[in-house]
């Protein structure tokens, strides 16, 4: 798989179809890291294997990456969904980013939103069994147990904001976590400050989270943050029929009024 | 007993508030504790951390001259959380002050020289301190020229003092506003500070130029001075970077290896040229 990818990227770079390619590379001790390839020779460092599950969509808006020119990206399903969601929030334009993705062992490339949507529609987006298992466990808890569970997790948080930085949807230049007029949440990483931060983060991602799990994977304190946002996906889907990152022109469920919207969950 | 907590402010009381311009105010602050007033001393060019309890701290220079004791003054523009709250305080209210921090204008070294002060916008406060310091010991200096520019007539700060300086025979004051910022009654110059300065044909002979203003103004003023023959060591400025501690510890105000809060804020152009572009 790596060879096919390398050849393709070499081609794209020498044809000047793209100026920079974001892909998976070999990291420290078997880790996978994002690499940025600008010359056909450097494309040799690209790899693709079953460990390459990371989405690099959070780099699409980084100024230094954008400054490099036209971007190509090795895109997992989650990265493609992130692209669609970013498009629906007017952060990237059609034909701006060239995504490479595997469709039944065939390396496809497209910058066309309609094509990417069609591919995504053909794929299964269910939550993985082990993720579902954790959610079920959480949902089976009493409110008190769930509260205690999260309090214990929040306690670990050091407010490094790696979760935010890794999230493709957390692109606000000035996150409300740091907004001080008014001061929405305490800046300090203490009990209240941590809880407020996570609740606010989850709320802002409700209906926008594309379920890539990056937040939990990057957390140096191993907090299963994605459970917070996963748990908001289902209600939004059930109540509004919306699932994030499937359409480039979707409207945001929580800011769209429809007369047929249910009101049963409003207290 | 000496206070060991370097973060504990002096408790201050607001003695006087002057509205300078839209959103710009000057506070005169007196020490609540007479002992503090006694022990406190500073020198022109230094700054401090002003706090509104419950909101936080904000960094401004001390805008009064060290030749006047018993109080300090600060001038600020209402812009963020702390300055917004500051603006709502009234005479008699308490607030905090930590300082003085940073280095000083080397006024001692300037004795016997001509002084040319060039300030733009809200950058007059640091300049006001050093101007008054020099005017309070006027006999030590030769010609004193002040060039001050703001966006519009309305934005000029220290209007009373400008008038006072204008009327003094031993000060030459030139005020200017940006094109479009003038009113029908305006008698000063119209034009940007660097252009007006150029037209003034400043004489570098035995002269020190002190420049304060927004980064763009400074950037365009230096070449004018250079063209007029000013050497780097004849030019001084003060830098502003975001600060928290004022003590060289919190790590955010540095320009290259230099901490603005400790090694600055006053720099000669010679020193400035050695610093990377990080301000």
């Amino acid at each position, binding site marked *: 798989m790596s060879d096919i990818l390398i050849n393709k990227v070499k081609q794209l770079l020498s044809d000047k179809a793209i100026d920079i390619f974001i892909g998976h590379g070999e*990291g*420290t*001790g078997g880790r*996978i*890291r*994002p*690499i*940025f390839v600008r010359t056909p020779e450097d494309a040799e460092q690209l790899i693709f294997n079953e460990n390459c599950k990371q989405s690099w969509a*959070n*780099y699409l808006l*980084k100024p*230094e*990456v954008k400054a490099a020119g036209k971007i190509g990206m090795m895109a997992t399903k989650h990265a493609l969904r992130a692209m669609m969601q970013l498009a629906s929030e007017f952060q990237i334009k059609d034909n701006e980013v060239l995504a490479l993705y595997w469709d039944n062992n065939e390396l496809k490339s497209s910058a066309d939103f309609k094509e990417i949507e069609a591919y995504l529609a053909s794929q299964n987006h269910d939550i993985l069994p082990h993720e579902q298992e954790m959610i079920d466990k959480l949902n089976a808890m009493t409110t008190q147990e769930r509260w205690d569970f999260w309090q214990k997790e929040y306690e*670990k948080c*050091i*407010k*490094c*904001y*790696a979760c*935010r*930085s*890794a999230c493709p949807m957390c692109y606000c230049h000035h996150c409300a976590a740091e907004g001080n007029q008014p001061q929405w949440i305490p800046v*300090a990483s*203490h009990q209240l400050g941590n809880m407020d931060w996570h609740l606010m983060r989850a709320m802002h991602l409700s209906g926008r989270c594309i379920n890539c799990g990056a937040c939990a*994977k*990057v957390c*140096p304190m*191993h907090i299963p943050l994605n459970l917070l946002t996963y748990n908001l996906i289902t209600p939004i889907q059930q109540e509004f029929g919306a699932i994030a990152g499937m359409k480039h022109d979707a409207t945001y469920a929580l800011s769209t009024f429809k007369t047929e919207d249910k009101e049963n969950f409003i207290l | 007993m000496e206070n*060991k*907590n*370097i*973060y*504990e*402010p002096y408790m201050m009381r607001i003695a006087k508030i002057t509205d300078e311009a839209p959103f710009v105010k000057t506070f005169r602050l007196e020490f609540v504790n007479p002992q503090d007033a006694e022990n406190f001393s500073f020198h022109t060019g230094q700054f401090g951390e002003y706090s509104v*309890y*419950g*909101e*936080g*701290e904000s960094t401004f220079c001390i805008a009064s001259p060290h030749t006047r004791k018993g109080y300090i003054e600060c001038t600020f523009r209402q*812009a*963020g959380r702390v*300055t917004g709250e500051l603006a709502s305080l009234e005479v*008699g*209210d*308490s607030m*905090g002050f930590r300082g003085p921090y940073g280095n000083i204008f080397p006024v001692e070294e300037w004795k016997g020289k001509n002084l040319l002060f060039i300030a733009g916008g809200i950058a007059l406060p640091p300049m006001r301190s050093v101007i008054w310091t020099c005017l309070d010991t006027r006999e030590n200096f030769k010609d004193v020229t002040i060039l001050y520019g703001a966006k519009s007539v309305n934005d000029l700060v220290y209007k009373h003092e400008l008038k006072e300086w204008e009327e003094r025979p031993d000060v030459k004051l030139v005020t200017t506003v940006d094109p479009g910022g003038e009113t029908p009654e305006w008698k000063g110059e119209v034009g940007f500070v660097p252009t007006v300065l150029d037209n003034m044909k400043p004489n570098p002979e035995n002269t020190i130029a002190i420049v304060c203003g927004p*980064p763009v103004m400074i950037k365009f003023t230096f070449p004018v001075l250079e063209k007029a023959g000013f050497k780097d060591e004849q030019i001084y400025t003060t830098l502003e*970077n*975001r600060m*928290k*501690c004022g003590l060289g*510890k*919190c*790590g*955010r105000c*540095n320009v*290259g*290896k230099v901490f603005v809060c400790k090694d600055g804020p006053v720099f000669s152009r010679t020193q400035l040229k050695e610093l*990377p572009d*990080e301000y």
Partner: protein
Amino acid sequence: MEPIIKIIKSASLATIVDKLKGRYPRLYAPVKKQELVELEVINGFNDIAQDYLLTTQSVKKLAFPRVEKILDYTLQKGNIQQQSPDTSNFPETVLFGIRPCDASGFRSLTAIFNGDKPDEFYKSRYEKLIIISFACNKADAYCFCTSVGGNPGNTEGSDIQFTPVDNDEMLVEILTEKGKAVADLFSDLLSDCDKPVDKQAYLANVPVVFDVNKVIDNTTKSFNNEMLWINQSLRCIGCGACAFVCPTCACFDIQDEQNMKQGARLRLWDSCGFSLFTLHTSGHNPRHIQSHRWRQRLMHKFSYMPEQLKVVGCEGCGRCSRACPVDMNIKEHLLQIAEL
């Protein structure tokens, strides 16, 4: 003080921990918590992690906690009362089983915080620490202490150091007066060293990968090498994980919290990697892109600190690289700079 060298049976460790705990209730040691190894107060020897390389977070939190109250006040219109928190009563705290790179990390923090105007909070907390380190007999791909002047048996900053040697025995080095007073608690378990022990032979092998003086020279020279910093930091996502796990990163923020009646001023961990760290109120940002912030991180540790404080701001513990979400491996980056 001239170090005192003793030998102890590894099996006595449990007794030592009990004795320490009896005398110092605030006895911290590495504790395993699922994927994390955290430094926590332990109740007994069994709480201590069996097999750990390093704690996930550094030990700096014991002297420089992530939230430190630096001022208390009551708010009543017209009558504000402020009070500095009492720093004279921080409890004596034993750090047991930390690594040499953590112990020596206090050198940087002390240089920054104590400096000319000492920060009482750090100073008083640090003075109350009793540091009992364990030399490393293993290391991983991220470790590079030997490249920045340390080594797996570095005793700097420790009051006592234990090194596992043969025959289920440990070498005990009593390094300071403080350490001596503590060792008196278990002097009955210590025996004299009849023949010299080659400590080196029992330490992990951590090869030197670069010459730190080259790194210092080259970072200092490379400020304007924009492409170097851009290329190194293209994958950096600007979080604070590296700074927060680092034993020497000391940058902080100051924030007020209040509830109408009373409030406190807090000193909080901050990171030069955050985009808002240097943002002016005017919107101007002297370090407006990540590459400049990455440059600041390295310049601060390898150029500014060596020049001004005479310390390198890095212990080579590799925590930043382990914690980094995108595998920014600082060892690789420093090697690249050394080879410029």
